């Protein structure tokens, strides 16, 4: 039974209503407040832009997000690739290994990291055994990155896996039959084809990382504070809803700009890799 197009739109209404009521309205409200409190104007934004903390924390948030993405690529891409190579049983095991942390409570995992990374904890002892005595990772950027990467890796791996599943492995065999060795075949055939999936996964991980609150709060020192924590303090301690709305709007706009710039930069790179327009857009 096919549904005429106009009826299909009606099916969207519940989802649209929910998104509108519980997402767009509250966010719109707090952003409007940033333009209207205490008087209509841009004074909230003037104050935020003049405050060096805003820029410092925003920059730090983007940098931490970028580092998280790089680490996820380094750890997650080989894992996802491995998942396509193995047989069904091993693949199920690998998927479960990725999903089990995913299903575990975020709080439980973060607290476990506190225990592991604290002064005189197991990780400290391990590093001492490798010739780095007296290093405490809790309250440092590496500590925060460890926690964030562990939490975001399943998102990355599953997204990349879903993307590269569709790559025809016979293309590599074909390349090898044309004279390429395995590495060349992988580098020049498989890798370029997997780039769209990696980009999609990276964008996902990056945007999620920008909103991280609990993990940097518990694993990092205030010098690793990310924008969500600063917004949180503004809401809870300063009760400055307009300022919080302003910071949220700044975050939203700068993220959109950043992703736009990255997209523009990547387009020629992807074309250089030999991917067609259609694949680039995918």
């Amino acid at each position, binding site marked *: 039974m096919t549904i005429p197009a106009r009826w299909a739109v009606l099916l969207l209404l519940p989802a649209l209503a929910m998104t509108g009521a519980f997402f767009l309205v509250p966010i719109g409200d707090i952003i409007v407040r940033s333009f209207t409190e205490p008087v209509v104007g841009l004074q909230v934004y003037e104050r935020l832009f003049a405050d060096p*903390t805003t820029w410092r*924390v925003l920059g730090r948030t983007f940098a931490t997000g970028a580092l998280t993405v790089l680490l996820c690529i380094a750890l997650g891409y080989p894992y996802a690739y491995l998942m396509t190579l193995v047989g069904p049983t091993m693949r199920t095991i690998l998927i479960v290994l990725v999903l089990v942390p995913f299903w575990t409570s975020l709080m439980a995992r973060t607290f476990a990291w506190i225990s592991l990374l604290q002064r005189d904890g197991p990780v400290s002892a391990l590093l001492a055994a490798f010739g780095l005595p007296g290093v405490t990772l809790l309250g440092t950027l590496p500590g925060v990155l460890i926690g964030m990467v562990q939490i975001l890796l399943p998102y990355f791996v599953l997204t990349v896996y879903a993307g590269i599943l569709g790559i025809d492995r016979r293309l590599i065999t074909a390349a090898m039959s044309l004279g390429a060795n395995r590495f060349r075949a992988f580098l020049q055939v498989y890798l370029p084809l997997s780039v769209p999936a990696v980009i999609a996964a990276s964008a996902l991980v990056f945007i999620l990382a920008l909103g991280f609150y609990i993990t940097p709060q518990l694993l990092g020192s205030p*010098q690793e504070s990310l924008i969500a924590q600063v917004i949180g303090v503004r809401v809870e*301690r300063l009760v400055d809803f307009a300022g919080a709305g302003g910071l949220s709007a700044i975050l939203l706009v700068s993220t959109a700009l950043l992703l736009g710039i990255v997209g523009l930069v990547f387009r020629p790179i992807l074309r250089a890799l030999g991917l067609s327009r259609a694949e680039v857009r995918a």
Partner: protein
Amino acid sequence: MRTTTRLGALAAAGALVLSGCAADNGAGGDLTLVFTSYGSAYQQAQNDAMTTPWAESVGATVINDEPTSYARIQQMVDAGQIEWDVVDTEPFFPVANCGTLVEELDFTNIDTSKFPEGTVSPCSIPILQYSTVMMYNTDTYDVAPTSYEDFFDLENFPGVRSVPNWGAGGALELALLADGVAPESLYPLDVDRAFAKLDTIRDSLVFWNTSSESQQAMEDGTVDLTFVWSGRAYEAENNGAAFEPMWENNLIAWATLSIIKGSPNLEAAQSFIEYAATAEPQARFAELQPYSPAHADAQPELSELQQKYNVADTAIQSQAIVTDVQFWADNSAEIEELWAAWSTS
């Protein structure tokens, strides 16, 4: 499904939903009170010592909510939908927002002379006292530190220091007192001087955001010198932490109860506050939780360890500095922004 069965099922479902909508007033009469505090054992003790006995004596129903959130209070008052009646807050909040976010209290039945000076405001009464006190790790140090200057002495007392991660947490007072400011001239705080002093130990400084973290750090021994709430110090020592207090210049603070502006249960709220302002409930609370009563006549029966951390004790009070609530009410917003800028850089 046949029409009658369908209608029957619909009616049954409707009845079930509607019964859920009916407000449950329990055994109480017309009086209801929504009491909001910080949750867990603390709020449970407040229930055992204060809200439940009061509710029984006047025949009211008490609903608990948690945790106290200034943002929610602001939001409630802005929207005109007051969901909380009596709330336990930090002392500066009712002073800063008297008349705007909290109601003025009726003091006809409250004896304010029984409370320490500076703890009562037109909009709040104190229900307990606690102190922010310097604690040192006895495993790390053979010689005990004797003043706040030792907190900043990296040569003789090396190690990790921990302070609360917000401006009003006490770190600024700690720094100024260590830098030689006399307690009488402490307020108004010279914030720049305090930050400069804290910068001298910045590399060895960590921060705690919640009191549980501060307690955990003491129990795990991951800090050497720390500045924590006396209640948490008690809990940590009770759990075997190797820390001892240094009481000189401890910062006395207190928790207050106030009524949210526009509360629908004003009569019940006023009645409860009058009850909580008496000696008995405060003494009962002090026996359950490691905080001291604010009421001068309260005589709680305390264990030896509880007595050690009883900040109402004259030995501790004589060394204490009372937090200037009016100063924090006036300057909290500005100083918190400065603290956020300093701590995140």
